[in-house]
C-alpha cells in the first residue's frame, strides 16, 4: 500500500499549540488511516495530543504528514486543508 504524504510549513505565530493540536487529534480520529507527523528527526502520531505538543513545532518549521490506510487519500486531503486553515 502506498503512503499519502504532504509537506507543510507552519505559519501560526506560536506553532502547533494546544488548541489546534487538540483539534488535529480529534480530526485524525475520524479516519481509519494511521496519521503521523514528522518534524526533523522526531515523529508522533497525529491523534496523540501530548506527543504532538512534545514535538514543539514552531512557526516556520516544515513538517511532513503521512497517512497510511484504507482512507489515506481523503485523510491527507482533509488534514492538509486543516493545516492550511488553522496552522
Amino acid at each position, binding site marked *: 500500500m502506498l503512503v499519502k504524504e504532504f509537506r507543510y510549513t507552519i505559519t501560526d505565530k506560536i506553532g502547533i499549540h*494546544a*488548541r489546534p493540536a487538540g483539534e488535529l487529534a480529534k480530526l485524525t480520529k475520524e479516519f481509519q488511516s494511521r496519521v503521523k507527523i514528522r518534524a526533523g528527526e522526531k515523529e508522533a502520531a497525529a491523534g*496523540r495530543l*501530548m506527543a504532538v505538543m*512534545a514535538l*514543539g513545532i*514552531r512557526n516556520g518549521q516544515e513538517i511532513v504528514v503521512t497517512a497510511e490506510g484504507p482512507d489515506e487519500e481523503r485523510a491527507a486531503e482533509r488534514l492538509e486543508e486543516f493545516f*492550511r486553515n488553522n496552522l
Partner: protein
Amino acid sequence: MEGIKGKAILGRVAVGKLFYYKKEKRQVRRVGDADPGTELHRYEDAVRAAEQELLGLYEKACREVGEVNAAVFEVHRMMLTDEDYRDSVVNIIEGQRVNAEYAVAVTGDNFQKLFSSMEDEYFKARAADVKDVSDRLHRILSGQEESHGLLEPVILMAKDLAPSETVQLDKKKLLGFVTEQGSLNSHTAILARTMNIPALVGVPVREEWDGHMAAIDGETGTLYVDPDPETLALLEEKQACAEEKRRLLLELKDKDDVTLDGKRIKLYGNIGSVADVAAVLRYNAAGIGLFRSEFLYLEKNTYPTEEEQFAVYKQVAEMMAGREVIIRTLDIGADKQAEYFALGHEENPALGYRAIRICLTKPEIFKTQLRAIYRASAFGTISVMFPMVASVWEVKRAKELAAEVRGELESHGIPFGSVSLGIMIETPAAAVISDRLAREVDFFSIGTNDLIQYTLAVDRQNERLEEFYDPHHEAVLRLIEYVVRSGHTAGCSVGICGELGADTALTERFLRMGVDELSVSPAFLLEVRERIRGTDLR
C-alpha cells in the same frame, strides 16, 4: 510600607486585603500490592468525573470569558484522555501493582518534566496545564471536593494559580491576584486579562502577608503591602477615575449614535479578522466600515482560494445580520508583505506596487476576491471598496472587473445581493479629483493614515519625523472637507475609517463638515459614541 516589583498582566489598580491561597498539599501515598482490576476501575471512574468537571468549567468559562479563552479546558479534557497519558497510568498500575493515585502522580510528573524541559516558552508553560489535569485526577481519586470559596473581597496571592482555579474563583470577591510563578503568556494571564482582573506575576509572595492591606498598581507593576496613606490615596484616586470612566462608557453600550440636535451618525467598527466582530457587536456598532481583507492573504503561504474567502465573508455578513459590512479589497504591499506575491524589493514601497495597483495588473487574483465577496453578499449587506485609488481610470477598470464577475455569476445561476461600490480616499490626488470620482461610486471612505502621510510627505514609520507628522494639519482637514462636499454634491455618502476617525478632538469638526459615517477600532467605539451624543450641531 513595602513595594515589590512584578510583571503586570493588566494596567489596572486594585486595593484590598491580601488572602494567601494555599493549595492543599498533594501527598501521594504509594500503596503496594494493590489489585490492578480495582485500581484501573477507580482510575476510569476518576477520568469520567474529571471530564464532567472540565465540561462544566468549559461552559462557565464560555459564558464569562468567551469561547476562545475557554478552549484551555477543552485542551485539558483532551490531555486527560490522551492515549500516551492513559497508557502510562495503566502500565504503572498493572506493572507495579500500585494504587491509581500513585500511578497518576508519577505519570503527571513525567509529562510535566517533558514540557518544562522544552526550549520554547509557550511549550514550557504547558507543564502547568499537565499539572492542573493530574492534580484534578488526584483530588477526585482521594475523594475531595473542589474548594475555591472566597469569604470576602480580597486580593488573592498564591505561589501559582492554575487556569481552572482562576476561572472558578468568585469574580465578585476577587479584587485582583498576585502570583510568584506564571508568565505573561500563561493561560492564567490570558484569562485574567479577559476577565479584566488586575494581576501581577513574578512577585515573591509571603504567607505572613495574609490579612494585610495591599494595593496592586498595574501601571507600574508594583504590589504595595501595608501601603502608607499617601500611596493609598493616590492609587485609590487612579482607580476611581478609571472605574468611573469605564462605567459611564459602558452605559453607552446600547445607546444610539445621535447628536444632541437629533442627527443620526453611522458609527461603524473596523475589523482585521473574524474574531473582531464580537467586539463590534458587543458595543452595538451599526456596521463594519473597514473589513481589512489582508489577513486572509497574510496568514497563508499561497493565495487564499475563493471558497476560503467566501466562507469568511459569509460568516461576517451573517454575524452582522443585515448591518452593513464594507470589505476593503486586497491592500497588500508597502508595510504588509506576503512572500508568495513575490513583490520584490522597492526603493519606495509606500509609493510602490501595492493595493489596487496589484489588483489591476493581476486581475485573476482580484476577480477571485470579488467573486467570493459577491457570493457572500447573498447572506447579508455587503459593500466593497477599493484602496489606494489615484485616478478615475482605475475606478472604471475596477468596476469593469466587478461587472465581469457579476456577469459570470449570473450565467452560472449563482445568487448575489446588491453590493454598493466605493473607494478609499487616501491619496491627495483622489481627494483633489473627488468631484470626478464621486460620479463613479456610491460612497467614499477616507483613509486618514495614508492621506496624512502622502499630503505632508512624512513617513509615519520614521520616528525622527514625529514632530512633523501632524494629523490635525490644516491641509489634511481642508482636503477632508473638500472630499465631503464633492461627495455629497454627487450623492455619495462619505465616511472616515482611518485613525483620525477615533480622534474625539475632531469629532465635532467632522460632523460639522457633514461626515456621514465614522468607522473606528472597536476599542474606541464607546468614546466616540459619547462624543457624538454630546455634540450639538445647531
